[in-house]
């Protein structure tokens, strides 16, 4: 017979989150990065975590006797704390800036409290953040074969042992070496002694050599084939060697997109690095095109919010995007106004044109959208040049085709814009590449409670509180930092420069590649 199964108010889904990949454009970039930079992530920016963390685990194993997972964790936490204190002390004494110190906030707070005994272990010390975290160095330590996860805990592998034994030659001479094994606190003065030896900026000479060897090795110190990570770092190094001035990772990404050397002439990579050059150029374009898409969507989002405060509502997100596009097309003075035809916009950008920049000049919806379409036109004009055709023929240019986010797909669509008005191009960017994408991505992520930034309902379209645009990192910053830690680059206040040994190292490694 008939049966009533439900009747009343439906439970409300209260969980929300706000991931930064709201257009689903990150996966092809991350996929290619995983293939090109094995062992390195955006978070693995300090080389000494690849030596000191294995030393901590080696040290634990060398204590002998019996332990437990908990016991091991307790041991390692103490040293993670000590490492953070030492670097905080080092920063204080040197007056230099330092990035990438794990547990910095907590340790800096204790340090500034001027405590004579600083907490190392015990209930007051949290388990995270730890270098072993999956979001930090954990997977990389394992991928470099420094540590391995076993049933009993984290074990130190051969490569880790080699580095650890080298480090221990110095560390074993330091003050408090015995008490630090189990102590719940450490004296401030002891930290100051260790600061000289644990500073992330100052690896010991032989340690630096081993770390350099590790970063440029295959498995465990030159025992295997050359991974793409090595080619990637050598490519960046060859660009750095060509730059007489300090440069930033952002500038390097622009060189990749334009295919130019730091002096704006064409960069021709060593033949052994051509594949990496192509892949990294593809990555740079995917980054800029992703940014343009997210910026255009954020412009519509802001437009909906701004309009709502003026009691102006839109039936659909598409109608809001169209209204914004029309207002933008008519806005600004003659110099600022966008041309009527999209083609005229792309013709403004030939190879010699300066990069349009990452951030828009202002945060108004019009300014954001104008910047986004200029960024698209800049990429388009670069991609359509005959010299860049090989990029589109590379395997990596098809990565992301499943989600219509591959570079070749981008280019196909950009070419279709050639005959359309700027208004239509804006519609394509905001609606086809923005809103439509977002709705699909958000719906797919519903299981993870991702949030719709724009919500269409019977009362029209509404925007959520915020729509932050990600500053997309493609691991170049991490690689430059690592190479700086192992002495191939030097950190300057306004970027990196190649060290004196960089050119020689590059040459030697290129020979090794062949």
């Amino acid at each position: 017979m008939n049966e009533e199964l439900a009747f009343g108010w439906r439970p409300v889904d209260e969980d929300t989150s706000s991931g930064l990949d709201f257009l689903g454009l990150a996966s092809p970039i991350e996929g290619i990065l995983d293939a090109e930079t094995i062992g390195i992530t955006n978070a693995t920016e300090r080389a000494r975590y690849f030596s000191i963390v294995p030393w901590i685990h080696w040290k634990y194993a060398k204590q002998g006797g019996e332990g437990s997972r908990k016991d091991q964790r307790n041991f390692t936490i103490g040293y993670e704390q000590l490492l953070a204190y030492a670097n905080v002390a080092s920063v204080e004494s040197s007056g230099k800036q330092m990035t990438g110190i794990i547990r910095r906030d907590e340790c800096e707070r204790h340090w500034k409290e001027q405590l004579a005994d600083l907490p190392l272990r015990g209930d007051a010390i949290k388990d995270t953040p730890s270098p072993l975290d999956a979001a930090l160095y954990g997977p990389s330590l394992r991928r470099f074969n420094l540590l391995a996860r076993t049933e009993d805990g984290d074990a130190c592998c051969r490569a880790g042992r080699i580095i650890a034994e080298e480090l221990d030659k110095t560390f074993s001479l330091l003050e408090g070496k015995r008490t630090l094994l189990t102590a719940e606190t450490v004296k401030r003065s002891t930290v100051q002694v260790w600061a000289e030896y644990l500073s992330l900026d100052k690896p010991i000479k032989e340690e630096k050599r081993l770390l350099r060897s590790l970063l440029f090795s295959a498995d465990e110190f030159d025992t295997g084939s050359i991974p793409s990570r090595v080619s990637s770092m050598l490519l960046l190094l060859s660009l750095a060697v060509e730059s007489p001035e300090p440069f930033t990772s952002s500038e390097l990404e622009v060189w990749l997109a334009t295919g130019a050397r730091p002096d704006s002439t064409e960069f021709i990579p060593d033949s052994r690095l051509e594949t990496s050059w192509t892949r990294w150029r593809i990555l740079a374009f995917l980054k800029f095109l992703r940014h343009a898409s997210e910026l255009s969507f954020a412009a519509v989002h802001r437009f909906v919010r701004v309009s709502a405060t003026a009691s102006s509502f839109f039936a659909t997100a598409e109608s809001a995007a169209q209204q914004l596009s029309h207002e933008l097309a008519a806005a600004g003075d003659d110099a600022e106004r966008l041309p009527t035809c999209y083609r005229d916009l792309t013709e403004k950008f030939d190879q010699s044109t300066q990069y349009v920049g990452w951030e828009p000049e202002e945060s108004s919806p019009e300014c954001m959208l104008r910047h986004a379409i200029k960024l698209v036109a800049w990429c388009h004009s670069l991609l359509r040049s005959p010299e860049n055709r090989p990029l589109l023929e590379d395997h990596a240019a098809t990565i992301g085709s499943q989600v219509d986010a591959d570079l070749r797909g981008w280019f196909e669509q950009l070419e279709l814009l050639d005959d359309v008005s700027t208004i239509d191009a804006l519609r394509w960017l905001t609606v086809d590449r923005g809103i439509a994408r977002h709705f699909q991505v958000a719906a797919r992520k519903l299981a993870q409670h991702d949030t719709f930034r724009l919500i269409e309902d019977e009362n029209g379209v509404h925007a959520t509180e915020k729509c932050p645009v990600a500053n997309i990192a493609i691991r170049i910053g991490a690689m430059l930092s690592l190479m700086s830690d192992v002495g191939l680059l030097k950190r300057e206040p306004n970027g990196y420069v190649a060290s004196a040994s960089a050119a020689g190292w590059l040459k030697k490694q290129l020979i090794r590649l062949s």
Partner: protein
Amino acid sequence: MKESSFRKGYGPEDVFEELNGESPNTAFFSTFTFSPAVFHEKYVLPLLRLGCGNIAVLTDPLGYSQSLSVASFAEGIGTDYRLRSVPLSGAFHAKLALIRCRGFMLVGVGSGNLTASGLLTNAEVSALYRIQNVDSLTQLDNLVSRLSMLAGLSSNPGIRSLPIPLTEDSRLITSLDDPIFSQCNFPTDVELVEIVSPFVDEQLLALAYIRDRWPEARIRLRIDPAFGFLNEALLEFGSNVEIFVPKEPVENNGKKCRPLVHGKLMCFIGAELSTVLLGSANLSRPASMSTENFEAVVERSIPSTEAKQLLKTPNVQWRKATREDRTAGSKFTSIQSVAPLNARVSEHRIEVTWSATLPTMAILKLSRRGRCVLTSTLQSLEKNGRTQSASSEISDEVIQNLDGPATAELNFSDGRIARGWIDIADRLGITPALKRQFSLLNAIISDPEECTVKDVADFIEQLQRNLQQGRRMAMTRPSRRSDESDEAADDALIDRSSLLIEGGVSGIDGALLFERLIRRKMNQAINELSFFRSGLRTAGRTLKDPSADPDSSNDQISTTEKGRLPPRIATVLSELFRQLASAIEECDSAATAAYYVCAIPNCIDAMRFAITKWSAELHVTDLLSQNFDKVISACCAPGVRSVFQRSGSLKLFSEDDRNRWNDTAMFADGIAALESGLLIDFHTEQKQRHPLIRDMYDVLKLFKLPGPEELQSVAGALWKLAGRGLEDSPNFADLRQQIETVRGEESAILGCREALHQLVLTSHSGSLDRQQQLALARTAANGNIGDADLLLTLIRESGNRICLVEVPIDENACPKCDITLPGSVQNQLKSPTAFWRCSNCGRLLVRSLEL
């Protein structure tokens, strides 16, 4: 769910929990606003996985317009389900879910649209029923017919829609033929009216109706200013009318925690009994007092004490409205007016229907994923009342591009535009099993890196089912539910006209269409996977050891050098190839054999996908050779003279059949795979097998073989799939030449038999000397000296008068004296060069080389 259902609405998950794996025949939804992405995730994918082959959504023109605005990324429209706009003088506003299964229907009624907010975040009311009563089912089927007719999905006008009994105290009321209020049974002694309604009409006519009908009753109206307007007139409506608005919660980290209240609930409370209306109807004249809107509500009679409990809105507290709460409501900026258009692609033709009030000539544009795939001029040929229509041929290339949701647009010379989704009949008409296959495929290809062992195994198992169903498709027109037997009782009423609009390509072409689509998608996924894996392999790593935890995430880093194929995947792959080989062996026509040859590339791709995903090259050599060799034999077995003692299914093809199939891409790919497999066998197998391989190759040679480059590419891929290094890969064009130099087994057997005949004949005449006899005997015995000596001995013992008799393959007795042959002799004679002298009549028996 059943225990806690009272005073709780339902969500999509509850529907599928209630279905409990049952495969619905049809699923029919109505909504006002519409988000294709959420609907696809929440309803379409689960329905497809259950094998529901007929899904339709009717929406207001606003919802239809919303769907078109996200056309570049929408999924499933026109391929997995049909979407139709229903223009009315008011709003097409009802939110119904009517899911018809064998013997029952799930009926969902509510206030939430098929949008993210409607399905998840708003405060919405809803009710769900399982209807088994035959009378109710008949009325519900009639309601579906009526709505289908409104949407142009059916020509069945149905009958007048009356309130449909759902349970003893509940009825489904729609405004199709009469206003909602006029069909309700209200208590005679209404003393309190509690209402939650996001919208009210501007003239407050519905509120006035209630006040005038029950002048003594108090009216408490809850309204969310985020939706409807709240003006002075409403606040001052009368002393017995109280207006409430939600209390705004304190902001917590920038988030406001209360949901928007979109639920519509009206409780007419008497002293003991109350009437509750729950559903889509607002307290407005078009919704409740007219038939301008299409609305649907559940009317339920319950004790008054329970009715009051229903007013507890989740996460919302109410307060009395003040003048500060006044709003003007939302006044939308107008949206671009686009005329509706219906389009349908079937095989190589597109049919377009648009309003007769628009011009007759237009530029037609077909778009898929935001890319224009066709532009052409279209002229209407036929006017039919209020519509006109035209059709046009479309090329194979365009068809290839329409592999997912696509839109058609007509641009008229006066600047007006008509736009709509294309129903791709070839996709909509496919069997539920194939739809399920595509949903599984999409789950894999949308994220090949992260998909689980279960996803891949399910997909491969579905390929196995396709092999069974493909045979049926190849032979017959698809049935409505091809996974049902004819005897299966199906009590669901079928709208006959739906059989006309289902359409779809039938027969072998239909089957191949999907093999092609599957192949294209698989190749994309393999392409991505191989890119990612190449980077990992260079580092001498695999992502994870699947045997440890087959469904774990990728953060499990294995230190093993190479991956292993998960056992379940290895099993289902073996089973897939076993079934393919056995299906090919059982073929009884060229059409079915052609279908299976076309299926070969997809089976190989499934193996390639798995091997690439789990980086398992070095562990699969046996998997490929053992499994694919069976398929090669099933296709190319040269005949009864061979050790197979049978003919492969390729021998079923006449010359006409071969000419027909040679130019079919999937078939050509299948033949290329077979040739590659044979050449690899030729290269890797011992020389003794070469004659047999040559015979199989001769069978294959009757078909059009790939060019040298394509051969190298296909064979190279197969070579790599077998775990062999590309550096060891032979030149397959050279192998082709080498195989031609080998003498086939069949030819050798015929030579042996010819020599035997000559030996027997010459023994009668005595024309040969002993040496010549011996040479002939050795040839007859295929070079076996012992057998040759035995043969000569038998001839001599018979006084050179021996008779040679060929025993038919299915015979177990001597054809001349009829004495049954011993089992061991029967076995011995299976060899085409073996002989035996009949112990009864003395004749020399050999196996016939013909059927």
